[in-house]
């Protein structure tokens, strides 16, 4: 609870003594490139393979001839939109971006770079962390949408390649009984997860004490705590909205 209290106070500190809009604008753009553009390839690769594997495994499990083939792509769609794109990708995002944030800020702490900012009269938490959170909340939903599309395309391509499902059946399955609210849920999840990962990772890095070993520990803690927070938040979002 004490740690949670510190986290809440840390979030509060981001919004006091802020720098000029221009300063944040530049930093947010830099973070967007770092977070979004540099992560896109990994997200496309992972989600395409997940979509392909989900298609193959669903087909493998559908042994009854009474079940139409288009159900395969319907299952892929449901899994992708509701869970694979926003949640599984969030776990990867925590591993890639969260660890990088915690490690970067932690290193700045132990090499006195954060002290240097404070001595200059700059609110170091706001200057370093707020752009990361804003950029995460801007870029992660975009990555989730890209992942969702790549996953469905991955499923489509593998379906054709190994003759599990025809293109017509696959598209029909994607469109069958589609509830648009699922997209809304996916975007809400993406926003919440982006906030949790970036803020928790920054928090862990910001309060690092000691040396290189402690930076490693902070990085591990950042990923672990982010993953737990994602899973808890995932349950509550689904429970509240769906």
């Amino acid at each position, binding site marked *: 609870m004490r740690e949670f209290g510190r986290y809440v106070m840390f979030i509060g500190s981001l919004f006091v003594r802020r720098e000029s809009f221009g300063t944040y604008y530049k930093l947010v753009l830099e973070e967007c490139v770092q977070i979004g553009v540099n992560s896109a390839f990994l997200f496309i690769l992972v989600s395409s393979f997940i979509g392909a594997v989900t298609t193959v495994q669903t087909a493998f499990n559908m042994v009854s001839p009474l079940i139409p083939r288009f159900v395969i792509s319907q299952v892929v769609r449901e899994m992708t939109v509701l869970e694979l794109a926003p949640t599984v990708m969030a776990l990867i995002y925590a591993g890639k971006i969260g660890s990088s944030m915690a490690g970067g800020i932690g290193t700045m702490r132990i090499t006195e770079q954060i002290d240097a900012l404070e001595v200059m*009269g*700059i609110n170091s938490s706001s200057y370093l962390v707020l752009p990361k959170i804003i950029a995460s909340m801007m870029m992660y939903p975009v990555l989730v949408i890209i992942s969702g599309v790549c996953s469905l395309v991955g499923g489509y391509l593998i379906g054709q390649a190994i003759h599990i499902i025809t293109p017509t059946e696959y598209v029909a399955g994607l469109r069958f009984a589609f509830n648009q609210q699922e997209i809304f849920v996916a975007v809400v999840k993406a926003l919440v997860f982006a906030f949790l990962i970036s803020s928790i990772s920054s928090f862990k890095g910001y309060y690092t004490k000691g040396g290189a070993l402690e930076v490693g520990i902070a990085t591990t803690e950042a990923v672990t705590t982010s993953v737990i927070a994602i899973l808890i938040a995932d349950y509550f979002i689904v429970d509240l909205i769906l």
Partner: protein
Amino acid sequence: MIKIKDISKTFGDKMVLEGIDAEFEQGKTNLIIGSSGTGKSVLLKCIVGLIQPDQGLVFYDLRNFTEADKEMKSEIRREIGMLFQGGALFDSKNVEENVMFPLEVLTKMPLDEKRDRANDCLKRVGLENANKKAVSEISGGMKKRVGIARAIVNNPNYLFCDEPNSGLDPQTSILIDELIHEITHELNITTIVVTHDMNSVMGIGENIIFLYKGHKLWEGNSADITNSGVGELDDFVFANKVMSKMRGS
């Protein structure tokens, strides 16, 4: 001028500073000396506000820094330049960008003006040709000089240096000391240097405070330090063989 009154600080059960009073004069190189673990760096961090003292007050030209609100503290801090022990340069920026950084965040100067000012400061510390180098490409001594350039770029009224000579060879140490001393006189600023290097003490110490186990035991200048009559200070000063020989002669 910086004045500190009755500064005390404990970490857990360990008392690190107890009842330190001192005055650091403008236009002079003020030194805080003592062996490792005597609380020098903690005192410096209490003065700049990186550590909150348990008790005591810090005044910057009669402005009460310790009890000031966040806005006031921020305002005073913008008049401070600080050289950290490891340089504390930003790895993501090159040398010129590091020096320009305080101007970028704290002023609305046009970019060309900021660049000129940064390069003037780099020239002042003898690094006019290193402005485009990455921080990882420069030596420890150069990092310290870049740190000094960054500290003075915003025309500070107060300059703090935490162990400016640590990890440097004797020649570079002297260069850094001279630079700090010259800048102090040139800009007529209040400079506080934390060090345990006797070369610095003898070379640039105009006002020296000796700390021992968290207490201030002696205050004076480099001319008086060898005959202070304080046993702990003598042990510190004459630990160095060259100084011991001086004592013998």
